[in-house]
């Protein structure tokens, strides 16, 4: 309890009790409304974004969101000139949607019908449209209506200004786009993973792409108010990218992306409510970013850490297997009059250029696998180690024989290939190698290790 009461400081940092209260929707009607609205938005963006990311349309959504600015400004100018209320949200969002569609159309024309690559087309549209928007904004500023602030909130977002009507709008639009994704799930999946196949099968790939782009437009436009047009790409791209790190299955990825998006929106809005100096749009994206980088490091499937561990494990395995085979070959050569299970591994140092730490690591790995045991200050193979050394050498030499017989390689040229492949020969391949060699009468009987095809 001491912790709970003393962490509140004058610097505006909230204490844990406050945080829990706000996170449990106890932070007042408006804060809770914003949190639920942004969470719904994150959910919808994550679902639609999953397909955008898989279809490699990430930067297209960025282009789209930047391209909305002149639409917003023009909608304001036109509505004001016609005597209407320029700041009305539906008017501005309609302008945003139109300009976004125009931008996407311009990218399409340029990348499809000229020699310019798609990325150049996107960059050109993004910057030119945004520049036009800025020119129009500076014009609006000269009108002296004081409305430019209201329009600039779309650039960085103004989550706190969300009204009940806005939250309902986001909820409705989000639900509609979820239903659309559910209805088009099969088509979207096909186009995301194998557009050529879809085309050959007679699916209207262009129309499906168009539907996906329409969904991205909808999600982008309703996100403008929450996170602003520069950061709207974050909620479309980051949660799906995070989800992709955890799974290879589309259904799970969409569900995870929705969850990550919702959590980012909910937590980000809560944090920003607790700390008034932190703008909501930025904090939401930072929460999403933290989830991404945590996953990037820790995900068991595609994470950096697990990848590094896997790599380490593999290189230790390979090194250990080389040691085992070398013990076998040394014992076989008869130079040492000791058996394989009494041959001290330290003697290998004479023939292998090992650094000491590397040797210790390999021996530790072999010991952990139960293939090596310590005896009288030395390390020798266990029974299992001897069997494993035999198996590895046998596989190595079966592969060499196979190459000599079936690939017409000279005996002096087969060792290198076998050296690489011996670590990954599984039972099935070994069985087929045996069959193949038995057919040509080259298979040594009773599972013994064949003689080496070349001088060891």
């Amino acid at each position: 309890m001491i912790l709970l009461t003393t962490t509140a400081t004058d610097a505006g940092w909230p204490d844990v009790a406050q945080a829990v209260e706000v996170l449990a929707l106890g932070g007042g009607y408006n804060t809770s409304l914003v949190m639920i609205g942004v969470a719904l938005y994150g959910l919808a963006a994550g679902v639609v974004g999953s397909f955008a990311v898989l279809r490699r349309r990430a930067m297209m959504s960025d282009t789209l969101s930047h391209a909305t600015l002149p639409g917003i400004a023009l909608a304001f100018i036109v509505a004001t000139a016609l005597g209407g209320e320029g700041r009305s949200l539906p008017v501005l969002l309609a302008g945003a949607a139109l300009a976004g569609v125009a931008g996407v159309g311009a990218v399409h024309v340029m990348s499809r019908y000229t020699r310019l690559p798609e990325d150049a087309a996107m960059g050109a549209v993004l910057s030119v449209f945004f520049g036009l928007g800025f020119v129009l904004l500076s014009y609006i500023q000269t009108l002296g209506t004081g409305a430019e602030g209201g329009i600039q909130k779309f650039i960085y977002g103004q989550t706190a200004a969300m009204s009940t009507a806005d939250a309902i709008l986001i909820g409705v639009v989000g639900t509609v786009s979820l239903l659309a994704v559910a209805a088009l799930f099969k088509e979207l999946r096909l186009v995301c993973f194998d557009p050529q196949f879809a085309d050959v099968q007679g699916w209207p790939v262009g129309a499906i792409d168009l539907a996906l782009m329409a969904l991205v437009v909808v999600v982008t436009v309703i996100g403008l108010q929450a996170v602003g047009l520069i950061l709207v790409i974050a909620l479309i791209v980051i949660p799906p990218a995070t989800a992709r790190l955890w799974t290879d299955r589309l259904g799970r990825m969409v569900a995870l992306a929705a969850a990550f998006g919702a959590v980012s929106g909910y937590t980000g809005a809560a944090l920003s409510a607790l700390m008034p100096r932190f703008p909501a749009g930025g904090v939401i994206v930072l929460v999403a970013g933290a989830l991404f980088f945590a996953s990037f490091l820790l995900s068991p499937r595609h994470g950096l850490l697990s990848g590094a561990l896997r790599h380490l494990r593999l290189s230790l395995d390979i090194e250990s297997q080389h040691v085992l085979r070398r013990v076998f070959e040394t014992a076989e050569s008869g130079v040492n009059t000791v058996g394989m299970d009494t041959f001290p591994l330290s003697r290998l140092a004479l023939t292998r250029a090992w650094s000491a730490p590397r040797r210790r690591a390999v021996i530790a790995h072999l010991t952990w696998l139960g293939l090596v045991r310590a005896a009288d200050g030395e390390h020798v193979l266990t029974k299992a180690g001897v069997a494993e050394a035999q198996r590895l050498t046998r596989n190595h030499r079966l592969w060499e024989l196979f190459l000599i017989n079936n690939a017409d390689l000279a005996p002096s040229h087969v060792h290198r290939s076998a050296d690489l492949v011996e670590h990954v020969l599984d039972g099935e391949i070994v069985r087929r190698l045996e069959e193949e060699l038995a057919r040509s009468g080259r298979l040594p009987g009773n599972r013994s290790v064949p003689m080496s095809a070349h001088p060891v």
Partner: protein
Amino acid sequence: MSLTTFLQLDLPAMLAALFATLSCALLGNFLVLRRQSLMGDAVSHAVLPGIVLAFLVVGSRATWPVFVGATAAALIAVALIELVRRYGRMDQGTAMGVVFSIMFALGVVLIEQAATRNVDLDAECVLYGQLEDVLWLAPTSLSSLADWSVWAQMPREVTTLFGALVVTSLAVAAFWKELKLASFDPALASALGFRAGIIDLGLMVLVGVVAVAAFEAVGSILVIAMFICPAATARLLTDRLSHQVALSLVFAAVAAIGGYVLAAFGPIWVGLASAVAASGMIAVTSGLILATAVVFAPRHGLLKRRRVARSATADPAHSAA
């Protein structure tokens, strides 16, 4: 408009815009050819946290700390994008989207902290620049230009951008052969023993440096437009790299001067009270030039394509030609 106002207000702004657009267009040629156009976009967004952190640490808008902070942020962004792309097994677009949006968000959040410390900084100036604030108060008349001390008082933005232009030009001239090879055939470049990775990195460093040098005066939106539009326009008009670079520089200069004139004087010509944003107008002008080329380019334009397609359907015998 008197000559003095032109010298004090318009000339320095035009020079800043011109130097910025020329440096960007020069590098843009290689970005467009290497399909890295959006890297300019990503990097110029990602420098924001570096700039803000430098402001927070130093407490002023001194040039060097900001430059160092922004360049560091640009390099971090490039490295992170490559890391995420390679080890997260994502396409480049996704990796860029993830990294630059997170870094920009970090910058936006940091700016709010800076605001409480009375540091004069907002995200708007990074996006749009403050071209109109580039003032050169020294010259009082045309004859005063003969005085060297007047030139020595050229505003910092202009001299910085001139330096960036010199550095980029020298670098491109020195590594012309390498850049050309790595842009058209990276595999051959590697096979011949050029370090394609080093060339890549060098190009990205230059992109970062130019983006940083230009952001304050012209803003990152104009930087992105100038990385892409002039080079893309030139790409539609020629197949020779040297011609393409030369043309892109011409288009960049036309966009810079034309856009500035349109923004500063255009509204007055049509009877509006005051000027509109110059950096935005320069971006729009470069876009208009690009749009013109997209439609009318003699060999790669939409109209030509259409004529070819039509004559092919009308006269199938000659469609092969």
